[in-house]
C-alpha cells in the first residue's frame, strides 16, 4: 500500500491544535487540496471523538502476539550475517531470477504435485480431537509461497496461503482456489496471508496469477485419513 502524503505528524498536530498560525495556514491550504489528508482528518476526528458510536474491542492477545512475532521475524532479516545478506542480494538479481524461473519451470514439469510435501506432526494427543495439518513451501517465478492445509472438522478444511518474504511484486499476485474447473474463491495477495475457510474435502488446485499471467499451480487432495490410536 502506498501512502502518498507524508503529512502525518503535521496532521496530528493540526488536529490536536499544536501548530503555529503559519503552519496551520499551510496545513489548511494542503487539506483543501489533498483528498487523502482530508479524509484522514475526518477519520481521526471520528476515532478520537466518536468511539462511543460503535462498540470497539481491544486487540485480542493472540493478535498482538502474532504482530510481535511478525515484526521480530522481519527484524531478524535485517540482523542476519553478511554472508546471508550477500546470498539474498544475489537471489534478488535479475539474472539469478531468470535462471531460477527456468529451473522452477523444468522441475515443475517433472515433479509430481505432492513432491516436496513435508508432513507436519499431527496436533493433539487424543485420537478424537487431533487435526491433520500439512505445510508446504512452493516457489513460483521466484516468489516463495507457503501453503498450509488444515482439517478443521468433518469434511471441512482451512487453507492458508502466505508470502513469507516481503515482496513488492506481491501486490499484483492473485491466488484462486478451484475444484475441477469451478472457481471457489479468489484473493489478491496484497496482504501477508489469505484464508480459504470451510473447504469440503476433495481435489483442488491453487492457481497463482501475476499481471494476468499464470505463474504456477499447486494441486492437492484433502481426504479423510485413519488415525490409529
Amino acid at each position, binding site marked *: *500500500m*502506498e*501512502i*502518498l*502524503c*507524508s503529512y*502525518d*505528524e503535521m*496532521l*496530528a*498536530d*493540526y*488536529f*490536536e491544535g*499544536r*501548530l503555529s498560525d503559519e503552519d496551520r*495556514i499551510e496545513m*489548511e*491550504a494542503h*487539506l*483543501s487540496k489533498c*483528498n*487523502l489528508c*482530508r*479524509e*484522514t*482528518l*475526518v*477519520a*481521526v*476526528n*471520528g*476515532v478520537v*471523538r*466518536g*468511539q462511543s458510536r*460503535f462498540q*470497539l*474491542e*481491544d*486487540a*485480542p492477545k493472540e*493478535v*498482538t502476539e*502474532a*504482530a*510481535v512475532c*511478525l*515484526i*521480530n521475524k*522481519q*527484524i531478524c532479516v*535485517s*540482523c542476519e550475517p553478511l554472508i546471508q545478506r550477500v546470498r539474498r542480494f544475489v537471489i534478488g538479481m535479475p539474472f539469478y531470477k531468470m535462471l531460477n524461473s527456468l529451473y522452477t519451470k523444468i522441475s515443475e514439469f517433472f515433479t509430481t504435485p505432492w513432491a516436496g510435501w513435508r508432513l507436519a506432526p499431527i496436533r493433539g494427543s487424543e485420537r478424537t480431537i487431533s487435526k491433520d495439518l500439512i505445510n508446504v513451501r512452493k516457489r513460483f517465478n521466484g516468489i516463495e509461497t507457503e501453503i498450509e492445509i488444515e482439517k478443521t472438522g468433518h469434511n471441512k478444511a482451512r487453507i492458508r496461503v502466505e508470502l513469507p518474504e*516481503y515482496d513488492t511484486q506481491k501486490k499484483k499476485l492473485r491466488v484462486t482456489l478451484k475444484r475441477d474447473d469451478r472457481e471457489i474463491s479468489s484473493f489478491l495477495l*496484497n*496482504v*501477508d*496471508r489469505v*484464508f480459504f475457510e470451510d473447504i469440503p474435502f476433495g481435489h483442488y488446485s491453487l492457481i497463482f496469477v501475476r499481471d494476468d499471467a499464470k505463474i504456477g499451480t499447486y494441486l492437492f487432495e484433502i481426504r479423510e485419513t485413519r488415525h490409529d490410536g
Partner: protein
Amino acid sequence: MKFSVEEDRQLLFRCFSGNRKATEILVRRFSDLVYRSVQYTLMNKQVSFNKYDLEDLHNTIFLRLFEHEYKRLRQYQGKNGCSLGSWIRTVAVRTVLDHLRKKGLDAMVWQKKLVPIEQAFGITQDEIEPLAAMKKEEQGHLLQDGIQSLSPRYQLFMQLHFDHELPVKEVAEAMQLSIEHAYTVKHRAIQKLKVYVAGAMNTEV
C-alpha cells in the same frame, strides 16, 4: 498510561538500535490503539469485515512502520509535542483508508457532491425543465468554482461540511474552532459564495 514525547523518543531509539525488547514493548503498547483505529475506520466507512481483516490490517500497519529498517518509524519527530500514539493513530487511519481506496471500497467514491437546496438560489420547482436543469447544473459548477476561490480555511470548512457531510460541531472539532467561530466561518463562506456566483452570472451574456 500516557508517555511523554521524550519517553517515546527513547523507546524508538532503543528500537532503532536493534533492541528486540523495545520493539515488543512498542507493538504491545500501541496494539489496542491500532486495532481500535482500524475497527472504527472500517465501521465508519460502512465496509463489511471480519476478524481476519482486522488482524491483517493491524499487522500490515505495524509491518509498514518497521519495514526497510524502520523507515516509516523514523519519520516521527515529535517536534511540536506530538505523541507517538497520536502519530501512529494517524498512520493507522491513513493506511486503512489507502487500503480501502486500493480495493475500490472507498465510500467517498459513491458520494455525490451535494449542494444544499438553500444554496441553490431558490430552485423549488417539482418538475425541472431542460433549460432550468441546465441552469441548475451551471450553478452547481459555479458553486464548485466559487469554493475553489475561497481562502484555504473557508474551502476546507465547506469541503468538510458539504462534501464529507460533517455537522458544524464536528467540523469545529476537526479544525480546532469554537462552535461560534465555526458558524461565523460558515456564514462568511456562504456570503462570499453568493457574491461569487451572482457576479459570475451577471458577467455572462
